[in-house]
């Protein structure tokens, strides 16, 4: 048992580092310790430039085959590259994550040769950005209950309806669309997958303002949007099968990178600085209990990730941590931030520049409810663990064999 690279891994890490040294500079302490993830604000332009650079070398998507611009590498090599890249002061390429992580893989699985030839490389280079158009007001946790209609008209499909919780739609060029082509068959059987340009007439993007004040997501409205049948991915009525691939990728994505920089170390730091009724907060037994409780959860997640990476580096399937990470992190963020605010006392009600540490814990607390919901609620994730990891039976499904337009909706 050790944390060392295998010889091959070490060689790859050295290559990656050499390339990064040649193309970027290491982070300073300042950039590194950025609790609020300021770098999310890095302009899209810088992101595209860096993405293009990575793409030239095949580092943009290491596990993809060389033919489509990847490196034909292993998942572990991707992990290693990410670890190394994180040490450098480079643009945040998160804007491409959904496109490359979910949309393009679906396109590569179901798209025509021409489509693949046309769209993969530009997406990989960051020249074109993709978004995912599944969630709807009527859908939510029950994604397949979506209502956006795609009706055949000659050789075209006409799209009407709306999508919600779409990340990055405001700067996306294309979207992966799941729409209902037949409401007279059961929910999962009437869906079809398409892709479309986000820039064409009839597509309207509106930002959603969240409780926290931020606007990371969008609502999309489709009004008689025409797309050719050639932009269909997979067979008519087979959209759910395609979507499952996409969603599986999403869980990994969201599950993986969560929580942000606000965790036990920041709480320990705060506790060192504050004085309570009985002395320094860090010496208060109740504070120490909480710190320990949260630490074992954070550490447990970290080492669970190490176990997964070990599995990866042995060429095995990823472990369960993708599904447990968000359950643990989201609630911890909510509770830990609330606790920190209580340590701050009445002043804990202040935020922004007036808040302690510029309101870092207040921001965490305001964002936490969203984290407990986005990409699968705590409840949905527990269902997933129960059903997919533990193999427990599904709940009773009353809508399973009912035509979609006959299924109960309460309306």
């Amino acid at each position: 048992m050790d944390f060392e690279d295998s010889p091959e891994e070490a060689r790859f890490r050295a290559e990656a580092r050499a390339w990064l040294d040649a193309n970027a500079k290491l982070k300073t302490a300042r950039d590194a310790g950025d609790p609020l993830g300021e770098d999310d604000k890095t302009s899209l332009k810088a992101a595209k430039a860096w993405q293009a650079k990575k793409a030239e070398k095949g580092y943009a998507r290491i596990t993809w085959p060389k033919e489509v611009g990847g490196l034909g590498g292993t998942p572990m090599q991707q992990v290693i590259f990410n670890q190394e890249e994180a040490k450098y002061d480079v643009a945040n390429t998160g804007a491409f994550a959904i496109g490359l992580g979910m949309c393009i893989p679906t396109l590569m699985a179901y798209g025509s040769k021409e489509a693949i030839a046309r769209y993969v490389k530009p997406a990989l280079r960051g020249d074109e950005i993709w978004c995912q158009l599944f969630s709807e007001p009527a859908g939510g946790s029950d994604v397949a209950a979506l209502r956006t209609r795609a009706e055949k008209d000659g050789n075209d499909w006409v799209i009407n309806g709306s999508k919600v919780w779409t990340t990055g739609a405001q700067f996306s060029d294309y979207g992966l669309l799941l729409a209902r082509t037949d409401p007279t068959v059961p929910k999962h059987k009437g869906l079809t997958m398409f892709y479309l340009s986000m820039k064409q007439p009839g597509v309207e993007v509106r930002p959603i303002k969240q409780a926290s004040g931020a606007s990371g997501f969008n609502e999309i409205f489709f009004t008689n949007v025409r797309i050719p049948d050639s932009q269909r991915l997979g067979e008519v009525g087979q959209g759910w099968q395609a979507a499952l691939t996409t969603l599986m990728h999403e869980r990994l994505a969201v599950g993986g990178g969560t929580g942000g920089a606000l965790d036990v170390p920041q709480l320990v730091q705060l506790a060192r600085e504050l004085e309570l009724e009985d002395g320094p907060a860090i010496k208060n037994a109740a504070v120490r209990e909480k710190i320990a409780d949260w630490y074992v959860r954070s550490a447990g997640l970290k080492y669970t990730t190490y176990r997964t990476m070990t599995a990866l580096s042995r060429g095995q399937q990823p472990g369960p941590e993708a599904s447990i990470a968000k359950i643990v992190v989201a609630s911890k963020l909510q509770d830990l931030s609330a606790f920190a605010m209580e340590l701050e006392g009445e002043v804990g009600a202040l935020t922004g520049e007036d808040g302690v540490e510029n309101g870092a814990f207040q921001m965490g607390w305001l964002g936490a409810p969203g984290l407990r919901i986005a990409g699968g609620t705590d409840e949905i994730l527990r269902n997933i663990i129960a059903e997919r990891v533990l193999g427990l039976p599904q709940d009773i499904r009353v809508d399973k064999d009912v035509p979609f337009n006959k299924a109960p909706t309460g309306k």
Partner: protein
Amino acid sequence: MNFDFSDDQKMLKDQAHKFLSEKCTPKTVRGVYQSGSTFDRALWKQIAELGWAGTAIPEQYGGLGLGYLELCVIAEELGRALAPVPFSSTVYQFAEALLVSGSEEQKQRLLPKVAGCEIIGTLARAEGPGAILPKNIRTTFRNGKLNGKKTAVVDGMDADYAVVLARGSDDAGERGLQLALVDLKQAGVKRRAQQSIDPSRAHAELTFENANAEALGKQGEAWSDLNRVLDRAAILMAFEQVGGADVCLQMAKGYAMERYAFGRPIASFQAIKHKLADMYVGNELARSNAYYGAWALSTGARELPLAAAAARVSATQAFDFSAKENIQTHGGVGFTWEFDCHFYYKRSRELGLALGPQRVWKDKLVTQLELSNAA
């Protein structure tokens, strides 16, 4: 055994409820959020007409002299409505500080104005993050002059008067503390608006530079007086919290009944049913603890400090849980600015921090248990 409010008190509650469900809808709260104003002046004016601020103020000081039980039922309704007015600062804290520590002259002079909502008052304690400790109070009050800085003062931008915890002598400890009553409309007072997690409860930093002020109560008794004020305020605020928690449960229930997923109302899923059952249990316990507090407050019972701490802790926990799980029950839409869930989430935290966090009250609670247990 008559552990409930009287029919008259319930009638008063219904009236308050009717009034507020007309005059203080979520739109009202949203208005304050978006206008950037510090509170809703129109609503405050109407509350003045109803005389609510004078509910527990004796008639000889221009109040209605109804009593604390009546004030509790009004507080619950203000809590349900998240009323964006400086009621709690002015009535639960400023007025109570006058009643606890004020001289006859001070009461005669100011309480009638409070009762008529002609003035807004508040309490200024904190000078920085962490516990508020006697030894750390640096604001001074000497020869009628107040100097220093207070932070996170609720309604501090609008208050006409503040009761300020200051040091009145060289004694570095509790005995050296003095409550000072200061008119905030003077040159020696600077105010700076501070950003709050709850935009409908404005906070401010107050800076005093040789501000003219007067003593409130005896030096050396400031700390114990202050705690008596906080005990009373905690019980009244517990009713606001219980009211807010109750609305969260109703919102969550209403949404879960009408929202369908997988062909059935989400209210039929055990995860949701049990979540709401837990909210209900917590809210019931908090309500009962608040009732006991109301009894202790209205009778000035020996148990008041214990009752206040229990009401405070229980109500804070209930509102915290109901507010966050209400958002969770709503899912994505519950986290949008358009939905009202976040008003309650933010208010739950703000009320849980004003008057001091749970930790402080839990400590007070156990101290009381030790005393009673020793007796």
